[in-house]
């Protein structure tokens, strides 16, 4: 696991009920993670407008990770079902907007999946770290 830091800026948008709790669990279990991501808590991935992820890129993010409850487990029963369609469209459009596909991902991490959270952020941050900072002119 990489301990180096400071070269990329990554935003992790996570839902309050599953992924935020999963990240808490990873902390409680002292599962080491990279430095280069900042967690932003929302009640539900259904709250996340894909434009918010685009906004993050526009503001200079080098990577955006969105994580919520597994489909079927949404605290509000349907939020992530709506969200995943939007997130998938975003995933398909971002490379078209000049942003490398590795810079964005969306996934599901439940409150009990601390190890999975560690693995998800470590993989994502490592990949974005390899690409380095973005010099986007368009977004």
């Amino acid at each position: 696991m990489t301990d180096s830091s400071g070269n990329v800026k990554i935003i992790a948008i996570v839902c309050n009920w599953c992924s935020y709790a999963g990240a808490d669990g990873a902390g409680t279990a002292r599962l080491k993670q990279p430095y280069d991501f900042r967690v932003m808590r929302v009640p539900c991935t259904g709250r996340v407008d894909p434009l918010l992820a685009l906004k993050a890129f526009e503001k200079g993010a080098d990577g955006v990770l969105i994580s919520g409850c597994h489909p079927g487990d949404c605290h509000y029963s349907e939020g992530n079902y709506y969200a995943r369609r939007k997130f998938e469209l975003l995933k398909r459009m971002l490379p078209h907007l000049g942003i490398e596909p590795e810079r964005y991902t969306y996934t599901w991490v439940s409150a009990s999946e601390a190890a999975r959270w560690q693995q998800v952020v470590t993989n994502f941050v490592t990949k974005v770290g390899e690409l380095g900072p973005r010099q986007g002119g368009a977004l």
Partner: protein
Amino acid sequence: MRIGVFICHCGTNIAATVDSHGLAERAAELKDVVHTEDVMYTCSEPGQAGIQRAIREKGLTRVVVAACSPQMHEVTFRRCVEDAGLNPHLFEMANIREHCSWIHDDKELATEKAYEIIKMAVAKVRTAEPLFPNEVDVNKDVLVIGGGVAGIQVALDLADAGLKVTIVERETTIGGTMARLDKTFPTIDCSACILTPRMVDAAHHENITIMAYSEVDRVQGYVGNFVVDIKRKAAMVDWNRCIGCELCVQKCPARGPDYFNAGLAETKAIYIPFPQAVPKRAAIQTDYCRWFQQGKCRVCSRVCPANAIDYDQQDTYVQRKVGAIVVATGMDVFPWEEYYPQYGGGRIPDVISGLQYERMLNASGPTGGHVHRISNHEEPKTVVFIQCVGSRDEAVGRPYCSSVCCMYTAKQAILTKSHCGDDTDVYVFYIDIRATGKGYEEFIKRAQSEFGVNYVRGRVSKLYEDNGKVMVRGMDTLLGHQVEIPADLVILATGTTSAEGAPQLAQTLNISYDEFGFFKESHPKLRPVETNTAGIFLAGACQSPKDIPTSVAQASGTASKVLGLLAKDKLKTSPEVAVVDQSRCVGCWKCIDVCPFSAPEKQELRDGTSRSHVIETVCQGCGICVATCPVNCISLKGFTTDSLIDQLEEALLG
């Protein structure tokens, strides 16, 4: 704006990898921050007192605590600032423990990260607005859907506590599946002896109204204030007059299928399911009635001493206003005939379901409690039970365990011995024995050792008729060889499936259900009797297959949750809900489309145009509408788009 930032050491939990003291100095330079301090244990009594002192002495209008996860102490600190006179929503937590100090080693880098986390929290608290919970009046009446043992238990518990309860039951009598059972495990006591007094209690309780032969048609409103339309199905009998004398049943010349006896017998076209029915009222199955089918007969009308028969009766609708709804609609028996052609698919007469056998064993059942073969009415000498028919079988789309079949099979095996004599050979084919309840394992052991029931581990691959016997071919996986048993009677331990119409009811109620049609609880461990729709609760087997003790225990748990809800005169609802800026709403109604809770509604303004309006007490605060609204005129209090963008900027520009 005067923001105070409190940075916790959490002993060494944070301070070992994050320089809390240094952060306190740096955070003082952030915009609008007028007070910072680092604290050994912020959540402790002196720590909280320090926050309250700073609020008073420094005139703080916003507070950030950088410490552990908000899931740990957000409530603690909100209460703390509220006690010092600040609105609890003008507070934000920066999680520098679970999300920073505990996951990093390098103190310099971790401190830098903690600083950014604090900056994001300060940015968020800057956009925070004071929020106030809404208060709504609570209607203290309760609707219970389903009058089985779980529904009856909930209703009695609530009625005893003084609440008015309406039970809506779609059959003509309450009692549910339990009323159809002969004995109950693991005590082998009589099912009716336990249940029917409870049914009578419910019927006579001053606080309980039973609406039998009725269904929930529409549900509007929200927790504390539901409006429910109930369809009262036409029984073709005026129940205000009917005295349940059964004269009509005796004289009726037409026959129809008998749901109550699981198809083991026929019933009359006008029927009362069983002698202890509550209410004991007759109803006509119009599909089988000669008057309705052929336009002649009217025997029931002639013999009825109460003049209760009304061939022109129509469905009627009544409305009930209630504060809470309990769903206790139970389960159905798996329709095994459609799925198991290898067991004859229902064409072999001496292969019957567990529930049919239950009716056969019952003294008031169609055989008067006499066990016999369906084909020739002889007493069976060899009886084979097959477990897990429609359970734990992915091939028939039922991967779950029905949770009752192991036990009822053991009970029926024991009863077979007592009905047909000790010399009857009884075999049970099983995959595993699941006997986890109190006294259950002992019960299985009794069946095996005391009653001499032969347990064979293995699945039966085929049933076929040969020479007047039902040949049972299967594998004994413990001995590793094929077995073939010529049986007189084969009983399938049929699994349970969700009640017919469960998904439709879930949609009417706006609650979730799983792929099998069982209703979903809000949280499997922490909120097992609540649904995700506030004010709607679950009890019994409608949630997942359950035996009687579990259903009743859960029902009482549900009753206590309902009482907890309705003990208050006013309900406080979370203020972190969506709110529409109606001056910007363009009326595209996408919010209404996507809301899982039906919180947004069209509201007509005085100029005749309509705008969206979110009913605060219904809104659960998920924000799906917020992400869907094209003009972004819906904002989620506590998670406004501006607060998210400000956090983004803070995290990215720093």
